[in-house]
């Protein structure tokens, strides 16, 4: 409770500083709107459904792309860890492409798919895929051989070995790869949405972009806050519980 109050006080002070800066009129109100103007914009956007629609469209792109990235990445990671041929080819490719900032996929996606949903999905998948492949491969390679040997003597082999021993043993690595993939996907999707208007749906990135076009700073800041909150929620609702479980089971330190 005390921690919560301290955190709340911290954010309250941030807002007060912002309000103070607005009242001091150091910058033009066009460049720095007041907190209440931003809240008014967010209320309006929430009331007329703009915000909900944009959030749903963005999240749908993100979740579908992320899911595809996981479904393709996990088995590829297992294959690269298991067979040298895959390690030399797909493993090397993944390592190379992971260093490529995922925003760099946007121009290629537009040329290949045009201004379509497919282009958005492609960018998200590219953001997710390589991190997941590499994390899975690293995780599998780091499984202590003694686990395999112990499982072998108890009659585990092939699929059972993969699903009941190797994958669970590699889980801490895989989860951190999933988290990194999520972060990359989220960033590249925002970049793509800001760059490109996709007529089938206006996402959060597009709202941000139009805020700039209209010089509506309260919109820009309001949408930025929404994006931050979504990122925080994804972490708190999805990743934190998994990480807490891993820390508890493995006995690794809980930061």
């Amino acid at each position, binding site marked *: 409770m005390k921690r919560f109050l301290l955190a709340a006080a911290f954010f309250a002070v941030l807002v007060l500083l912002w309000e103070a800066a607005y009242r001091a009129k150091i910058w033009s109100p066009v460049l720095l709107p007041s907190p209440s103007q931003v809240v008014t914009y967010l209320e309006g956007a929430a009331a007329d459904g703009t915000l909900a629609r944009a959030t749903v469209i963005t999240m749908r792109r993100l979740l579908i792309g992320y899911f595809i990235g996981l479904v393709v990445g996990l088995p590829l990671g297992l294959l690269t860890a298991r067979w040298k041929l895959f390690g030399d080819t797909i493993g090397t490719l993944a390592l190379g492409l992971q260093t490529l900032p995922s925003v760099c996929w946007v121009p290629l996606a537009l040329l290949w798919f045009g201004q379509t949903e497919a282009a958005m999905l492609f960018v998200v998948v590219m953001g997710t895929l390589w991190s997941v492949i590499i994390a899975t491969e690293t995780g599998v390679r780091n499984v202590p051989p003694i*686990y395999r*040997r112990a499982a072998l*003597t*108890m009659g585990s082999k092939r699929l059972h070995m993969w699903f009941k021993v190797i994958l*669970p043993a590699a889980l801490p690595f895989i989860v951190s790869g999933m988290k990194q993939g999520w972060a990359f996907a989220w960033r590249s999707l925002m970049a793509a949405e800001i760059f490109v208007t996709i007529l089938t749906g206006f996402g959060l990135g597009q709202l941000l972009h139009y805020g700039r076009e209209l010089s509506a700073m309260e919109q820009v800041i309001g949408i930025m806050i929404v994006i931050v909150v979504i990122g925080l929620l994804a972490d708190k609702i999805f990743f934190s519980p998994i990480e807490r479980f891993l820390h508890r089971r493995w006995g690794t330190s809980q930061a």
Partner: protein
Amino acid sequence: MLRAGRHHSSATEELQIIPPSKLSVEGVSKSFRSASGNVLALDRVSLKVAEGEFVCLVGTSGCGKTTLLNIIAGLEKADSGAVLADGKPVTGPGRERLVMFQEPALFPWLDVFGNVLFGLKLKPNLTNEDRREVAKYYLELVGLSRFEHANIHELSGGMKQRVSLARALAPNPRVLLMDEPFAALDALTREQLYGDIQEIWKARRKTIVFVTHNVREAACLGDRVLLFSPHPGRIQEEFTVNLPRPRDINSVDLAAHATQITKALKSAGKAEAIAPK
């Protein structure tokens, strides 16, 4: 199919004491490639272990005793020679011969109960009820019923090895292969486990092959102690320990046996120091 109380009778069946295996190692050789060329780890080693016998393999580290244990387990292949379990050649690992390793190879993603259940889940023809019942029985046997739902990292070294023992016993193997299972434990915990393992061995009637470098430990546990000499790994001498059980590691009679074995072990070491490799 729907006989009443079927699962109950099946768990009881699963817990029945089954006849232990006899093992026969016949002229097993094994070499490893290393930086300094081929090293002969085992040189035509032969030995026999009777049904329900407790045999200890003693030797300095690097004498090939662990390699031999792995070959008996089926985890490694011999270059030549064969291992027979009840007359049938061993071609790979199997749950008839379960291994307890030096470091507890417990799975950190499962709790204590899940670890003991692991091997049982791979056994067909058991209901999940049966499996749980059997796992509970063995956790009780090693005195860890209260820690069923503990995470592995929360256990002490001794408790971890008890769980390993329960996990190895649970699928009811005919042979238990133990690779220095108590080497990393403190003396007090070890002494406790010497008592426990003797009791469990008596209760569950397993054939046990126990690898150690601790002569006293070997004399305390084994019906027979086989002394390994290194480079290349060979059985140098064999001792029979005819002391009543349960044996106390600190007893004077046991010390006499241990001294005799230690002497032989030292002379083996000397012989090696004199003979060029």
